[in-house]
């Protein structure tokens, strides 16, 4: 029996994907697990694997089209099967069951009406569905769809229509929600974007959050719900704005994850300047001996791993449970992420088990991951799950800075530039040293100040005397 093939979340944070390439043609049969197409996610280009063996009856999302998670990208089934009804439904109700319900309530005629023209044009459903916000400024929350239904029967209902003349809310943004719902969501770690609002205009209200918390369907990181059609770009940009770029993909993920981290994890920062002279000398000597250059970051990752193994309290992460309680997860293995700037945004490849690996192995691991990231093929498991992150802006001449913790870790080390600096020696005379300023950002829910300071002292000692790592 024919069915719609829906866009899946191909990374933990993916909310929409762009069809990069179809590997199977219409009419072609495929096996379970076969790559049907390639999808550009927020982080990388991923293969979309067939969930079952079938025939690709119809491609709905053409190359270049965007599809939100849950939106149909194709119809599959048995060869020769009639799938026109499916196409109609998916076009009329591509925003999912919520919206289909609303649309059919408002305009019974619209539900089953195929919109073959739209599909035949090859434009993806999500784009064709980008109807203006129903009713515009006149829309009363009670009947957001009915105003537009007669003239635009194919327009899907928008779960969060712009009511009362407000600027349309981009689907990726927070839906309208009551203050109480927001407070409850914070308490229960419910991701409001994943909650269907039952209030007027799709407002998420308390009962929606409590229901989501009970069912566990909207935890942070859970797959997004059936999507809303994007609002039109009706929001007038001011005359001083030269260009407006939609925030999506990787940018949106960075924005969301780091906002979550910054606004939920209480950060504190510890700063310490270390003498990096011995480490630089040792690195130079090893580089010369081996004939290959190992990055300073690999050394810092290794030394951090040693220090973390001696201060396991930091090798941990805060975890919010659906019921509102929380746990701190402690880990034996030390995985260290490295913040890497790419033209389209930040990635954080993770070198695993750095405590057991040598600097060369860590360096090689980072190098491989970075080249995959540049190619857009870094896998989710390769950039997530680190307990500790290093961010080094020294190459930009930055002396010191504070960084935002990379979840689920509980600490991040911000590394400044190594520089020559005068200092007062123990005997009171002035000397010159290779100074480097480290700023450790900690999640106070997991780590207290003294704990972080002890770790930083350990790390400083290791950097100043790398041989101590052997102890």
């Amino acid at each position: 029996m024919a069915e719609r093939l829906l866009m899946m979340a191909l990374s933990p944070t993916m909310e929409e994907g762009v069809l990069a390439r179809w590997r199977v043609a219409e009419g072609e049969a495929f096996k379970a697990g076969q790559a049907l197409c390639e999808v550009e996610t927020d982080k990388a280009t991923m293969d979309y694997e067939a969930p079952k063996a079938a025939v690709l009856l119809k491609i709905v999302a053409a190359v270049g089209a965007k599809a939100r998670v849950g939106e149909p990208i194709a119809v599959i089934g048995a060869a020769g099967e009639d799938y026109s009804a499916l196409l109609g439904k998916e076009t009329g109700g591509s925003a999912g069951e919520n919206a289909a319900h609303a649309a059919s309530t408002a305009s019974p005629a619209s539900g089953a009406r195929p919109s073959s023209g739209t599909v035949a044009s090859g434009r993806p459903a999500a784009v064709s569905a980008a109807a203006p916000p129903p009713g515009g400024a006149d829309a009363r929350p009670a009947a957001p769809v009915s105003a537009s239904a007669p003239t635009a029967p194919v327009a899907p209902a928008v779960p969060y229509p712009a009511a009362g003349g407000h600027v349309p809310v981009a689907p990726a943004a927070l839906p309208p929600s009551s203050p109480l719902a927001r407070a409850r969501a914070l308490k229960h770690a419910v991701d409001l974007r994943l909650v269907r609002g039952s209030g007027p205009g799709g407002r998420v209200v308390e009962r929606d959050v409590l229901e989501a918390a009970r069912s566990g369907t909207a935890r942070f990181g859970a797959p997004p719900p059936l999507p809303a059609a994007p609002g039109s770009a009706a929001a007038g940009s001011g005359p001083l704005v030269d260009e407006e770029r939609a925030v999506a993909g990787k940018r949106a993920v960075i924005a969301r994850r780091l906002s979550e981290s910054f606004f939920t994890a209480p950060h504190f920062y510890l700063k310490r300047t270390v003498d990096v002279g011995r480490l630089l000398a040792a690195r130079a000597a090893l580089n010369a001996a081996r004939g290959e250059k190992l990055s300073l970051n690999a050394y810092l990752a290794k030394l951090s791993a040693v220090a973390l193994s001696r201060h396991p309290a930091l090798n941990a992460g805060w975890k919010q449970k659906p019921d509102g309680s929380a746990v701190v997860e402690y880990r034996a293995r030390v995985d260290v992420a490295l913040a890497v700037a790419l033209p389209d945004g930040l990635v954080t490849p993770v070198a695993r088990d750095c405590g057991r690996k040598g600097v060369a192995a860590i360096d090689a691991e980072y190098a491989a991951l970075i080249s995959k990231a540049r190619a857009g093929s870094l896998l989710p498991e390769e950039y997530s799950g680190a307990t500790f992150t290093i961010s080094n802006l020294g190459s930009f001449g930055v002396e010191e800075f504070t960084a935002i913790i990379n979840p689920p870790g509980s600490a991040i080390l911000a590394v400044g530039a190594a520089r020559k600096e005068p200092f007062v020696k123990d005997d009171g005379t002035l000397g010159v040293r290779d100074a480097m300023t480290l700023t450790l950002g900690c999640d106070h829910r997991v780590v207290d100040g003294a704990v972080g300071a002890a770790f930083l002292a350990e790390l400083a000692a290791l950097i100043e005397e790398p041989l101590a790592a052997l102890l």
Partner: protein
Amino acid sequence: MSVITYREALNRALDEELERDGSVFLMGEEVAEYDGAYKVSKGLLAKYGARRVVDTPITELGFTGLGVGAAMAGLRPVIEWMTHNFALLALDQVINEAAKMRSMSGGQFKVPIVFRGPNGPAEYLAAQHSQALASYWAHVPGLKVVAPATPADAYGLLKSAIRDDDPVVVLEAEMAYSWKGEVPDEEYLTPIGKADLKRPGSDVSIITFGKPLKIALEAAEALAAEGVSAEVLDLRTVRPLDEAAIRETARKTGRVVVVDESWPVASVGSHVAHLAARDAFDRLDAPVELVSGEDVPMPYNHGLELAAQPSVAKIVAAAHRALYKES
């Protein structure tokens, strides 16, 4: 405990205070020989004489201002306005004189005066005789404004008003004069500035004052029949407002319906809604609803007149909106 009318409760309060304090006198149109236009002062002339229960010519500005001077000179006038509609003629004396004298003199004078009379619409009286003017008085620093809705509160608040050292405006209601309620037989004072939880509940807060308390309680009953537990907070005093009580109920239920029979713009109700939104923001699950008088001069026709006022149905509908329930 006796069951008496609101009118009798006011009369008892006046009687007791005239008896207790020789500096208290009652002045107004028809208060003495006619026994009061609404019979609130019934029998008081006979008991206290024309020196202390004083009929005036129809001269609201004159006798209101006279009361202010008498208060500055140490008496405790109770000025009866036949209705608050006519008090508009005396606005200057209340706002510019009574309310400000203490501040303008750097605290040299007290103005212990009570202005009282029926406020708000009654029936078939049309635009000039049916208006709820609480906001006019509540707006003014230096005044205190009370709005009793039950016989017990009418008694206790009027006595407190007469004993207060500041000017107090008492908002009575013509329709309420014949309402009955239990009033304790022993003497008591109802504190100015304290709201009263007339009905506890958990799902939605109905906050009101004065005459609409009756329909607010009826609406709560109607809501209870459909399984909604409505809390009814009677503000009793609209200046100073019991902000703590507003905060408490708004935070408790997270849903607020304010009922004020005044016009909606710049009203006590709209200010209460502001306080609820400000002080309970993170606990609100719905926008604060305001059920007000309609924004029109009161029509004479009874159907239109009723449509222009808050009603049980309007309050229930507002509660439904606040609860995201289908009406």
